[in-house]
């Protein structure tokens, strides 16, 4: 700011001092990071993993595999890395300049952008077989050299260039010149582009790739108009296409889970039912259960040698049938698995309907039934739409239950899997199937938005809502309680089966009790060299814990920063930003899985088969949940809290750290727990991404199931459930509670 006054005494104000200083500590930090990445850390990815640190004693820094970029250049290798040096050096020249200086912002923007472009260009242009594109060979001749995926060095340089760019943009005055906000936006955009848009785009394009390379619409069409995808055979007694099967199943599951979820929510909030806590616990249990485990329990109950089947056929003297395998089995299993999700969505909405609205309706002479139908139910519309959408997408993406129970009922998610891992290995077909799947879920997503429109359903008023929810009319109340009761008992039996099944020698054949499965899975031996984890499950178990523990906080961080940007900042392109970050929510795990292996098994990002790809996939699969949790609680915190922090001289980073974050603890907890649990129970994306070295619990269990080793599978799943219960408790203790008194009002809105 050009202050024209010359009187030095009057220039004492702190604001003045703040804007005068021309040091840019944050920029210096990121430049340092870049230089460290370039000169000290290994540029390329290391096979044993960076954090094994084996490379330190294996020829570093001179060995070509472990050398930092600077040393590679110095020894005449990989000359295409040299221009990056320029991009890292140029910002140093303007460090002393003030941020309002045009030279400062232009230099940072130019070097950051050009550096990133060059980094991407060399990464995509030069791969493990020299030039990646034929036209490059034609242009420059054979390269005679090659490179692998980027490693820690490359990553740090990329980050440094990105934030140099955002510093430049901020200095130009974007978002009021706020370095933190512009940097956060840049960071989120970059990772979403790299880990959502890039792989999805790559997967979609591979649907057009013909046998010998090259693109072809004919190939796409032949795969797309396949009878196995769109056939109507089932109407005439044959088999229908997987696309119709998936769609029908998803609509069915979406509706069923929504209805039952609503029944539960109403039972808990609007009836005189006394054991509400119990009901809540029962419904939340399936969330910490790997989804296909329910399918297993169903087999134990209703399968060919299931207890109920055997009992009934003995009673009636009929032959046991395989009725469970196919649509009925999948539908029951998915309904059991996803109803709790619908319940959780709906309970918030049902409780959120302001009692004063309902009381007002009643004072206007509406009967209880009228009130429910004309006021309460319409106000729950957003919750119902959300719950349906969730059920729809979960069902579309579910992989475990159809695999275990599917029989002849083909669905897209399993078809994708078999296209990739089966004998046919047909990447193009998998991509086409994924496209169809993606089309369905995105359409549902879009339809939901259209349905809700821009109407506001917010009913939480600023002032504390005294008043109580009216009870449901008696008849409805009884109906709801009996449905809920039946369902709860059913769920309890299924879970009982799971625990019981884990102790049975061989289900249906030899029902003696045994610890055998636990011993096989989790035995430990003590000898002179310490503990030896001899159980078959330990490997995948520790991997799962490790990956879930790394992924959970990352998910929470990315999700909450995104939520902060969406609720508290305005910037150009915010709508597309929101869409981009929410997109991965509508992308089924199976699609994420296949696109990740397609996109990340070649440089520049070569992480297939490592733990990193698992962590990354979990972060982006679960990020939307973090975002939603964050948005929900941030809108509850009055904006004037942030604003007063800003007027008190805190910058947006300090405001985020000291005001928003502490008040967000419940959201943080939710995001942490959810992403941890999902990382431990997820299967749809994981099944594509695991490797011999990084096997996850769920894929290990599925493997056991495929070998008909049900006992071990169920024992392992039971152990997982116990671990997750513990983990939820630990997280709760770690995050702690926000210390705020009762009377404080988080006045929403102004």
């Amino acid at each position, binding site marked *: 700011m050009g202050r024209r006054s010359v009187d030095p005494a009057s220039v004492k104000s*702190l604001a003045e001092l703040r804007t005068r200083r021309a040091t840019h500590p944050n920029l210096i930090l990121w430049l340092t990071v870049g230089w460290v990445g370039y000169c000290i850390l290994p540029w390329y990815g290391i096979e044993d993993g960076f954090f094994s640190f084996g490379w330190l004693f294996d020829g570093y820094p001179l060995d070509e595999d472990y050398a930092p970029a600077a040393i590679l250049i110095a020894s005449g290798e990989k000359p295409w890395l040299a221009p990056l040096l320029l991009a890292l050096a140029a910002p140093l020249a303007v460090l002393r300049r003030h941020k309002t200086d045009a030279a400062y912002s232009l230099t940072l923007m130019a070097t950051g952008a050009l550096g990133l472009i060059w980094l991407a260009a060399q990464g995509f242009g030069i791969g493990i077989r020299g030039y990646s594109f034929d036209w490059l060979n034609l242009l420059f001749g054979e390269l005679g050299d090659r490179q692998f995926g980027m490693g820690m060095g490359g990553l740090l340089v990329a980050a440094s260039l990105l934030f140099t760019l955002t510093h430049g943009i901020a200095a130009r005055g974007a978002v*009021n010149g706020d370095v933190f906000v512009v940097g956060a936006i840049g960071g989120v955009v970059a990772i979403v582009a790299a880990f959502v848009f890039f792989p999805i785009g790559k997967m979609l394009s591979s649907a057009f790739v013909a046998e010998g390379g090259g693109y072809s619409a004919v190939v796409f069409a032949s795969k797309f108009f396949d009878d196995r995808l769109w056939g109507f055979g089932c109407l005439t007694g044959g088999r229908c296409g997987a696309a119709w099967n998936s769609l029908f199943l998803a609509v069915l599951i979406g509706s069923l889970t929504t209805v039952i979820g609503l029944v539960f929510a109403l039972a808990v909030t609007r009836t005189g039912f006394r054991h509400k806590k119990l009901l809540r616990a029962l419904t939340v249990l399936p969330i910490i259960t790997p989804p296909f485990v329910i399918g297993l329990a169903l087999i134990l109950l209703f399968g060919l040698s299931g207890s109920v089947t055997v009992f009934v056929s003995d009673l009636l003297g009929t032959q046991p049938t395989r009725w469970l395998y196919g649509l009925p089995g999948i539908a029951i299993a998915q309904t059991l698995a996803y109803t709790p999700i619908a319940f959780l969505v709906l309970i918030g909405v049902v409780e959120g309907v302001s009692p004063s609205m309902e009381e007002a309706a009643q004072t206007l002479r509406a009967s209880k039934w009228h009130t429910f139908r004309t006021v309460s139910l319409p106000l729950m519309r957003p919750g119902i739409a959300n719950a349906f959408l969730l059920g729809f997408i979960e069902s579309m993406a579910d992989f475990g239950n159809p695999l275990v129970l599917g029989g002849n009922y083909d669905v897209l998610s399993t078809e994708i899997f078999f296209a990739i891992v089966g004998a046919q290995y047909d990447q193009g077909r998998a991509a086409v199937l994924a496209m169809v799947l993606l089309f369905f879920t995105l359409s549902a997503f879009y339809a939901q938005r259209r349905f809700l429109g821009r109407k506001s359903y917010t009913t939480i008023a600023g002032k504390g809502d005294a008043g109580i929810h009216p009870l449901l009319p008696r008849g409805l109340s009884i109906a709801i309680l009996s449905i809920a009761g039946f369902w709860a008992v059913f769920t309890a039996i299924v879970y009982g089966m799971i625990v019981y099944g884990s102790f049975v020698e061989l289900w249906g054949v030899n029902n003696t009790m045994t610890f055998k499965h636990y011993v096989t899975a989790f035995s430990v031996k003590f000898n002179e060299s310490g503990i030896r984890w001899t159980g078959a499950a330990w490997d995948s178990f520790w991997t799962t814990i490790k990956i879930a523990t790394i992924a959970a906080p990352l998910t929470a961080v990315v999700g909450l920063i995104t939520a902060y940007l969406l609720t508290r900042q305005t910037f150009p392109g915010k709508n597309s930003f929101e869409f981009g970050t929410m997109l991965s929510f509508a992308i089924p795990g199976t699609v994420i899985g296949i696109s990740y292996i397609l996109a990340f098994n070649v440089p520049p990002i070569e992480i297939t088969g490592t733990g990193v790809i698992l962590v990354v996939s979990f972060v982006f699969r679960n990020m939307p949940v973090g975002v939603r949790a964050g948005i929900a609680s941030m809108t509850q915190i009055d904006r004037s809290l942030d604003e007063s922090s800003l007027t008190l001289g805190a910058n947006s980073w300090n405001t985020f750290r000291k005001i928003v974050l502490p008040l967000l603890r419940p959201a943080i907890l939710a995001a942490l727990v959810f992403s941890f649990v999902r990382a431990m129970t997820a299967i749809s994306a994981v099944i594509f991404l695991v490797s011999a070295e990084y096997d996850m619990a769920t894929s290990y269990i599925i493997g056991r199931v495929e070998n008909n080793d049900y006992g071990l599978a169920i024992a392992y799943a039971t152990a997982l459930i116990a671990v997750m219960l513990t983990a939820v408790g630990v997280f709760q203790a770690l995050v702690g509670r926000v210390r705020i008194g009762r009377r*404080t009002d988080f006045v929403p809105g102004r």
Partner: protein
Amino acid sequence: MVQAGIAGKAAPVSLKDVTKTFAGGVVAVDNVNLDIDTAKLVTLLGPSGCGKTTTLRLIAGLERPTSGRVLIGDSDVTNLPATDRDVAMVFQSYALFPHMTVAENVSYGLTFSGYGKSEIRERARAGLDLVGLRGFETRLPSELSGGQQQRVAVARALVLEPQVLLFDEPLSNLDAKLRRQVRDDIRAIQRDLKLTVIYVTHDQEEALAVSDEIVVMRNAAVAQTGTPRELYDAPVDSFVADFIGEANLLPCVIEHVYDGLAAVTVDGYGYDLPARGLSPGSATLAVRPSRIVLDADVGFEAEVSKATYVGVRMEYTINASFGAIFAVHDDVQAPLSVGQRLKVAFASSGPVLIPKE
């Protein structure tokens, strides 16, 4: 008031042709010009939705003007974010951080101001002393009464010794008695520390009581600026006349103007008063209820239609040929009776001529 170590660094504030248009085309502030002097308490007064809060937020840096410039001291801060402006604001909702104690709340801004730990503690204590809340340091905001919370919010802003201190309807959550007390406290602190304070309210009595100067706003624009007396005695138009202490707006005719003095007639009753630049023709006469003389010897004809006893005085509604007039009278011993016909005149000073709408 103890003046323990907190001093003002007051600076003047100017808005130059400031316009703020929100997305969707709502013009919340329309070409506003303001010059606020150092160490003055200026109120922004106006009906709901007229742009007071937006004006304040523009000064605080929480909004950017669509066009125009904002100056604090003699530097142009138009593009400076709130963080970097030397302005503190007391929010209507107080915006105390619920997860921090009173002491932590008050020290919050100081930690970003480059003070040492012990100095922060000193200053925070001095701030709490100033608002009479010593000993409350370890409480949480939720453990304070509304008035105490309000004072913490004031202390939190004061300790930063800002160039400008902004209040957005700071008293609207308090009951009538507390409101009077806190308002006097704020005024006393402002005088003692010689602070530049901009104060938003829509309570005209509050504005008249505390301000050095009042800015009346209407429809996103400034209607009039002046000292309380000026606004009361010489409103520029009927909106201001009516908004600042009720006024009867009577139709009148200016017969002739001579030497700055206008001779007007109201329903045949002649009266002389300063012309304020108006020329002969029809105009409006603003007369405060207390300036109406009832049962005079000369005046226009009217009839008492309603008489209300409110303790210290009588309130009358009187029907004249051109409409109803509201009048008050101190004589409660011998009230006029409803239906009584009488002549109505004006006191020798008080009525003001304003242009006809």
